């Protein structure tokens, strides 16, 4: 598993790893949607390409997850699969495959209100990269 949940008193923290930055950003996306719903039942119904930028790697991570959360809160789309196609200082392009929310097929675990800067860290480690951050629930 590319991530694990970490303890935070009121909210949900994640620690993500990846062999490279592309995988790190992809695993962070999966962590977010695994918190929201049971992603194992999601179907591929539509696809989109998105571009995100930031002023450093950590800011890019927050903006990336914000853009994905927007797909859910603004358009009721649930992300099934992501592929980072380009990632350079400090912007990325990604292909997103999504399902449309259907209350008969999808069970919602919790409301993720926002991606915070709390405990935000993106840094290299001996196996590649790691990141920590906290979602407000």
């Amino acid at each position, binding site marked *: 598993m590319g991530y694990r*949940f970490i303890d935070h*008193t*009121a909210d949900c923290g994640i620690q993500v790893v990846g062999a490279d930055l592309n995988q790190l950003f992809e695993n962070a996306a999966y962590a977010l949607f695994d918190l929201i719903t049971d992603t194992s039942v999601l179907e591929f119904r539509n696809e989109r390409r998105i571009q995100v930028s930031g002023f450093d790697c950590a800011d890019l991570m927050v903006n990336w997850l914000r853009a994905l959360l927007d797909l859910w809160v603004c358009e009721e789309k649930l992300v099934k699969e992501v592929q980072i196609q380009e990632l350079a200082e400090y912007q990325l392009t990604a292909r997103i495959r999504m399902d449309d929310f259907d209350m008969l097929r999808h*069970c919602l*675990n919790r409301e993720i209100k926002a991606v915070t*800067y709390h405990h935000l860290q993106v840094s290299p480690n001996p196996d590649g990269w790691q990141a920590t951050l906290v979602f407000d629930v």
Partner: protein
Amino acid sequence: MTVTLNRIDDYRWEIPCTGDMNVPGMVYASESLLQATDSQDAFTQVVNVASLPGIVKASMAMPDMHWGYGFPIGGVAAFDWETGIISPGGVGYDINCGVRLAGTLLTESEIRPKLESLVNALYQNIPCGVGSTGSINLSPSDQKQVLKTGSLWAVRQGLGADLDLEHTEDGGCLPDADPSEVSEKAKGRGKKQLGTLGSGNHFLELGVVEKIYDPETAQRFGLFEGQVTLMLHSGSRGLGYQVCDDYLALMVKHAQKLGFKLPDRQLACARIQSEEGMKYLRAMSCAANYAWANRQILMHHSRKVIEKLLGIGPRNLGMRLIYDVCHNIAKKEQHLIQGTLQTLCVHRKGATRSFPPGHPSLCALYQHTGQPVIVPGDMGTASYVLAGTEKAMAETFGSTCHGAGRAMSRSAAQKAGKGRSIHRELENKGILVRWSGKSTLLEEMPDAYKDVSQVVDVVHGAGISRKVARLMPIAVVKG
């Protein structure tokens, strides 16, 4: 870094002003509360807040404090209006998350036989839970009016009475609201959510007044022993979260304007007297007004559901708003600082206003008693009604605690609750609970929270609010 606390008395602990701090920290707590949970992370946040420009007197934490983003939950910090900062992290994502308490003419014995039907009707008719939408369709111009006028908009639609406005902080409307400062994304998130409870720690609760501590004040508040009450805890929903998000991003981007490095990115702030500061103030005011409209509508709809289920009219139910308080807000207020009246931006994040008798902000009914302060506990134990005091004005910018405060993380609560049937445990205590989120009940179970009675004993003992009544839950609806 281990933060040292110096005991002042049984309820006050000072963090000395050292390093980058501009003022000392002041923690309101008891010895047993401090021993029960490790609050070092929260104390570090109290220290960080103390380093922000224009902070006045002290960086404070109430006894229900815990680790937050930038500012601790339970944090109170006031900044000079001309030279200080305003921070979305000092308000919270759920702008104007707050509580309202209404009394009725009913007693517990009158509704017990129908309690299960009542809680089912409330659960089915009050939108709650993740993804829930309300029945109110807001046109763009309606939404503008909601953001500008708050509770007044709801009352004008016939969803309440003028008296409700008198019994709401600031009449349910902050005047600086400017809808043009709220992003289209935020407006989009809030469009379908007006009149919804939300999820997580939001709730609707029927309670019973179990004990009266101050009979004269209780009578003035409209409380009597054995009385059935309605309590609502909700906020500005997706609109407020997005406003916080938008302005945190803006302030992080312009952080270099502050002239110093923030110890924590989540402390992103702007000078109040700056373009970014003023824009946030206006947008935050909009979100606060949305939350007040939301709670006004929720109360109205709850009243209708109860009247219909019990087959009684408004006169026999006699539902009357006692007060509506904010927990997450920044307000322009005047306070006496070393004998001089100073205009301040008071941030209360997980803290409640506690204004004393005689304060001009209070309606005529509460001039003699001080402001009602509603302090919800967890769903298995008590809630309290307190009254504001002069001591609060003198020490804490007229502030006190807001609730029980979390003691356990959500994952720890999930582990501790494994194999237990929380709703049956509550039923055995005479509390019916209905919920919708898969994880909600475990994450919100009573054990996950501090003992609210201990929290209230601290603020009462410290004199920053005084006990009036204790309420016990009998039916709870959670999203």
